[in-house]
């Protein structure tokens, strides 16, 4: 269960204050697939970052399974991000140094698993997302869609409670974007993960169980 109560986020740039989120209240139940849509700059990515513990709220509380993220210290927050949250980014963010297999295995290794064990699991997840033929390729050797699928596999390998996806189709063509959204939908169905997906594209609503629209840092009714 994700709960946001009167959450605001303010960014400061010099003397200027930018209000990215304004007193947002939101509840997302476990196993839900929520799509957050809105125009660029409406605050949807900020909302996602607060849910994932990637940055703190300026005001209000963010709770995941009853735990207030603001009360977690850095090591606990690190563990929280590592064990409870999987993140998928618009620009894939795979480490160029590592192969796809190693990229996917990395969160498990960071969690303390042995490399052998992590590689086996990573292979399984890569096959799950249809990349069995690309295990030992480096990121720049595969297509954008393949990179994003590898990033999804990486987000899932630690069996997180929540998968957060920030514009996962933003860098993809429409056909590939549809394939990636279909993959999210399938994974949500098969593994019962809570998925929060942010996108400016309205068609993501076709894959989600609930669509939330945002404008100027507020949720639209």
């Amino acid at each position: 269960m994700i709960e946001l109560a009167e959450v605001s986020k303010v960014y400061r740039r010099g003397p200027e204050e930018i209000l990215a989120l304004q007193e947002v209240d939101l509840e997302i139940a476990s196993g839900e697939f929520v799509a957050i849509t809105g125009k660029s700059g409406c605050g949807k990515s900020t909302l996602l970052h607060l849910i994932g513990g990637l940055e703190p709220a300026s005001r209000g509380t963010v709770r995941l399974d009853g735990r207030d993220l603001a009360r977690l210290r850095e090591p606990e927050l690190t563990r929280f991000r590592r064990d409870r949250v999987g993140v998928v980014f618009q620009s894939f963010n795979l480490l160029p140094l590592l192969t796809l297999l190693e990229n996917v295995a990395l969160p498990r290794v960071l969690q303390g698993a042995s490399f052998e064990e992590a590689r086996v699991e990573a292979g399984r997840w890569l096959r799950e997302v249809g990349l069995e033929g690309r295990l030992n390729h480096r990121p720049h050797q595969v297509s954008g869609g393949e990179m994003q699928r590898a990033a999804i596999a990486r987000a899932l390998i630690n069996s997180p409670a929540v998968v957060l996806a920030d514009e996962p189709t933003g860098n993809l063509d429409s056909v590939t974007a549809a394939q990636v959204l279909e993959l999210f939908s399938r994974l949500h169905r098969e593994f019962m993960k809570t998925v929060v997906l942010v996108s400016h594209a309205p068609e993501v609503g076709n894959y989600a169980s609930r669509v939330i629209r945002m404008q100027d840092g507020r949720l639209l009714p």
Partner: protein
Amino acid sequence: MKPWLFRLPLAHLRQNPGRTLLGILGIALGTAVYLSISLAGATALKSFENGVTAVSGQAQWRLQGVGAPLNEALYPVVRRQAAVKAAAPVVESVLELAGPHRGPVLLLGIDPFSERAFRDYELSRAGDLSDAAWLDFLTRPDAVLLSRPLAARLHLKAGDPLPVLVGAKKRRLRVAGVFSSPSGLYPLDGAVMLMDLGPAQELLDRLGGLDYIDLMAAGDEALLPGDLQKLLPPGVEMVRPAAQGSRAQGLVASYRLNLAVLSAIALFVGMFLIYQSVTLSVVRRRREIGLLRTLGLTPGQVLTLFLAEGLVSGLLGGLIGLALGVGLAQGVLAVMTRNLTSLYMPVAAQAVLVQGGLLLQAWGLAVAATLVAALLPAREAARTQVRAVWHREELEEKIEARAGLIFGWGLVALILAGVGANWKMGDGPPWPGFVAAFLILLAFALFTPLAARLLGLGLQPVLGRRLGAAGDLGCRYLAGSLSRSAVSIAALACALGMLIAVTVMIGSFRRTVNDWVSRSISGDIFFGPAVFSTAAYDQFLPPEVAPELRLDPDVADIYLYRCVRLPFRDRYILVIGGSFEVLARHGGLWFRQGDTREIMGRVGEGGQGTGVRGQGPAAPFTNSPKLPSPTPYEEENVGAGLKPAPTEAPIKLAASSSFNQKPKTKNQKPFVVISEPLAETFHYKEGDTITLPTPSGPREVRVAGVFYDYRTDGPSIWMDIGLFRRYWQDTHLNAVRLYLKDPGKVPEVQARLQERYGDRYRLLALSHRDLRQGILNIFDETFALTYALEGVAVVVAVFGIITTFLVLVMERERELALLQAIGASRRQILGMVLVESGLASFLSFILGAACGSVLSLLLILVINKQAFGWTIHLYLTPGIYWQSLVLVMALGLAAAAYPAWRAIQPHLAAILKEE
């Protein structure tokens, strides 16, 4: 090309101030070191040349003896010749000031009435001198004229006393007046004084002798040697005055060359910084390059832009380096003049002569170095196709793929270095050796990419298991970031290699010298005048001292020592007369083949007297100045005039018995032993015959043995002192060695000598241990400059390491943020950065140690042998390897500390900003 396009490289330099600054500083330090050495060397030599020019004045030719004074009777004979327009007799010696101001001062004994044609000193009454000063100068035996700069420096005026040391004797001179040189040129940077010829001969104990006679031809000066040839007795050579300068230059050429080459190392290491900086720039600006190419920029223009970026660092770094170099040069000059004076010849230079040519040369070198360093990455940028301007990953793949090939080029460089090391090129500087040294550095730099990759991949499983993700990722980053880290590792390895090589060389050299002192120099006490330079050959032991020492009840044996420097072909060599019989009894000299006692025995049986038979054309008179013998020794048998000690058996002094025999057969040539540098320089070996110029004409001597010798003031020929005295007609002694009956009494005898002679003379009685320590102190001071140069190279390399890790972390900011986003802890990220930097530092050490070991062999076996003719025995110095390891690990980890600290700061903002 539009000038405003150059705003791009400038903007990038401004955008990365830290990296830019380190690159500029690296070049600046390299330039400063190079310039300071060049300026100091040129100033010291210019000062010496000024002295030669000032002393030789208008002289066209000079008559001089071969390591002996000329007979003054030659002067009127020469002057009367029609072919001679003017002649001026001179005696000279470098004395030491004994008053509150110390330091060497050149005394020129001149005939004031012959001088005016030659030197522009204002000596006449119409010049600076008052009538009283002039009268004083001509009539008082202690009167001297001081040069204007010396008088100003010492704050002396006419009538003031001037205490000096003439050898061991303290003498009190009196200032009669001050002279000046309108040209502004003075020997020894102005530390010069004039004395009338007669009193000067008396002061210097050279009655009847002259050091040289300057000549001016009445007609064609080229014909003068032919006109005078028949008049000249054997042992007199006629040379151009400038020959003295060029021979002196030859003496210090290797010293200067070695410093110049070492000083260039810092600049070489600085080139790595520029290479790295421009490479990083190419990688970081790949999109910009692609865009510019798309917009129509030609490959040539891309090349120009990147070269311009390197050039800015070169120009600015060079300029800063010039300022730093001029400042540093003053300190370097002080060390250098001390070294040159104590080892080679008196040199005095107070202020650095800033020569525009050398500034331009250093600046040009800095700019050229940066352009060469920037050329490779700039060419890559220019050659890259529009759509495929390097991505980091592509560049990495390219280097990974080429690592083997690059390693192969390294092997080729190493093989070429081997060829260069074995290439002998006449008698000039050891250029092939220096090229070989550069190739060795290059080879190990080229080994770096493959070595880094193998080390990273090889340790990845081990460190991955031991340290988890930090170990695994650290290894991967080392193996997978060659474009960034390999250059820094190579730069540090090169600097470290040079440091290790020079340290091993110096350490081996020091131990060799230490062994040489033990094996070559026998004796319990070394007794002679306290001189400021090993090259003060005209500073003598007072004549009564040796006979008195012989009566000392604790003295078992006395070794007599006399040394002269003489021109031999285009060089100066030393001829040393020593008591070989004493060496035969006590040992001494370390021969490269054979045993000292056996060789000394052979020399003794060789019919030393053979050399006295006449050689060369008959001369109207001999060149023997008939100097009064300062000792009671007879010339033919030094020991003959001595009385045995009253309570002891007669003490055998040098040059007695077989050592002074008349020739056994007419054709026998006397034996000598020669130093290894002489053998190497002139290609002599055991059994060869040398035609030696002597005051009694050229003499043929045979080489009985070649011994190791590490004195710096020239290659040497040693002969028994009896033979020396016959050839040179010279009974002075520079020093003696005492062999005590009970070596445990050294302090007691030292104290007695001090008590006996301390009031009268300034003599020094050194124990063997004192002598060894003195030699090693001079040795250490000589090499202090070398260590300083290498230290700068290491500092420059550390700049490279700091830049690398800073850039590595900055470039990976997003990757590090990502790692944090997917759950990496601070400790894991910190560990990863430190593992990578630790491995990079360790690899620098491994490559540097290997490179340094190979280089040290080259320095010891090739470069030193070719440059100085010295055999240095290799002694491993494990200490430097451990010290280097600790140093490089500490520096590497410290250099990574700030970037590592940056790395563990929450970086999520960076990735979020991107998203």
